[in-house]
């Protein structure tokens, strides 16, 4: 069925403010940034007031032949492991605090606190958790999981540093996604839950049969945002390890950051690295959309 002209008009009218603003302040700079990936544009251009010059794929060759970029890419991809863990935990927590029990307002607020805690403050505390004499080793020794003689600083061991930082990402993220999931859960009509309860479904069945299917759009949203955030992780790395030890936490965004920061920047190379990472991002988005399909054909036919 062909949409009516009036519908098209209304649609674009509603989209207009967003489109105009995004054209000027998002699309234009992003496209310009992408264009820079094919040019030579460094601090020297700013100094001599000369525009970027087109150099084709030169920057991409530079980036791809740089071992640091390859290390960064591997670490960024490794970081994706956090996504399913974080999403399942956030959804579970959201279900837990969605109950009509006393004190839930407190727990919701408490879980949101990491989101608003500045990373530099959090870093001090997490340092204390991860050092050799820290809380984590103390707990592990207390439960006899590790032997005190073999203890080490978690951020100083090339085999554990990335995982330790992922734990911080988890800490900062679960309250954030919990809020998004709560938003979704609140839109599930309670009649459905009640009906299932009458049918004798237990909590586990209700979760998988009702909550998860109805929450699909939100799950897609969250897992996509979380995947993109994972491959673009930067802040945590900067405050904890700066990419070390032995580059085991060096990510692509660290590479981009180091190339674009300070008064010796090379935006051409930084943009090229960013574009290569974007390719990964597009693939991830596609996979996410495929896994959590929303059955668009049916809906389109109806509208």
């Amino acid at each position, binding site marked *: 069925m062909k949409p009516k002209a009036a*519908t*098209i008009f209304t649609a674009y009218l509603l989209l207009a403010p967003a489109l105009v603003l995004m054209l000027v302040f998002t699309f234009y700079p992003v496209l310009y*940034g992408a264009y820079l990936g094919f040019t030579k544009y460094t601090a020297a251009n700013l100094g001599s007031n000369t525009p970027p010059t087109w150099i084709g794929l030169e920057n991409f060759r530079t980036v791809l032949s740089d071992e640091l970029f390859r290390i960064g890419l591997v670490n960024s991809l490794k970081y994706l492991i956090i996504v399913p863990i974080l999403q399942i935990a956030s959804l579970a927590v959201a279900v837990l605090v969605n109950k009509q029990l006393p004190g839930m307002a407190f727990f*919701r607020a*408490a879980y949101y606190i990491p989101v608003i805690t500045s990373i530099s403050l959090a870093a001090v505390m997490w340092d204390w958790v991860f050092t050799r004499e820290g809380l984590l080793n103390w707990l592990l020794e207390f439960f006899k999981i590790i032997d005190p003689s073999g203890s080490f600083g978690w951020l100083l061991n090339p085999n554990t540093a990335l995982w330790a930082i992922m734990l911080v990402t988890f800490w900062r993220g679960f309250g954030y996604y919990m809020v998004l999931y709560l938003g979704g859960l609140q839109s599930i009509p*309670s009649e459905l839950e009640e009906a299932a309860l009458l049918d004798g479904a237990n909590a586990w069945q209700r979760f998988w049969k009702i909550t998860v299917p109805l929450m699909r759009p939100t799950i897609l949203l969250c897992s996509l945002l979380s995947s993109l955030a994972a491959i673009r992780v930067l802040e945590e790395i900067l405050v904890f390890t700066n990419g070390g030890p032995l580059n085991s936490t060096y990510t692509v965004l660290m590479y981009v950051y180091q190339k674009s920061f300070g008064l010796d920047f090379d935006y051409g190379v930084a943009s090229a690295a960013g574009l290569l990472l974007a390719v990964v991002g597009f693939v991830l988005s596609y996979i996410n959309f495929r896994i959590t399909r929303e059955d668009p054909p049916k809906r389109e036919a109806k509208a």
Partner: protein
Amino acid sequence: MKTAPVKLIGVAANYLVLSLIALFAIFPFLWTLAISITDKTVASGVSIFDFPQSLFPKAITFNNFFEVYRVFGLEKYLLNSIIISSLTVIGTLVVSAMAAYPLSKMTFPGRDLIFGAMLATLVLPSETNFIVNVLSLNKMGLLGTYWGVVIPTIATAFGIFVMRQTYVAVPDSLLEAARMDGATEFQILWRIMVPLSRPALTALGIFTLVNTWNSYFWPSVALLGADNLQPLSVAMLKLKGQFNHDSFNVAAGAMIMMIPVLVVFIAAQRLFMRGLEGAVK
């Protein structure tokens, strides 16, 4: 049917789990709070990095807060932050709620292209955005104004994406019924979609608030030359200088930054959690 004691154990276990997660979540907050109310004039012999002793201050005071407030003249910055954050939150909510509707519930040529392009901006490199946007603002004469900080940040792929996913979950039958009754698309958006997505709108509002409230890089650039309009976050950076470094004041400053957002979050929970059965029926 479950018996009463079993149920009670279930509830207790529930609370135990919730409390453990809460402890995991808030321990840095507790430490910051403890430092911020520690009386630094009392010689304690305990450094702030001494865990866990520093979590239990020997003498309590609010002087650190007053000192930070007075030294930095925070009222001016606080007002700037409130203005910038409110404008940004309102702008983001309006723009996103409007744009998400056609992208989720209407069919028109270009829809998928537009949505795809918006999503692409989440992935593409954005390191140079600030410089391009500053040049644009300068041409528009908005550099160094509140609007210059706000306008470039209100239309975001993130906001539109959040709202679209919420709208997608609304059953089409509701809209069909309204259309049968002769409602216009604007009426459907305002009377059905917006009330139904209130939790998501609240969530988006809180996220936007947190982001705007804490961001310091963009405001510092967009307000070049207008130092009297700088928000709190920019002023707070000054706490960390090599010579200014006073951990107690840094902690108090952090609390000053966090508490308003926390209060808003707690207040917003009501909007967020109220049942929606009435609207769905």
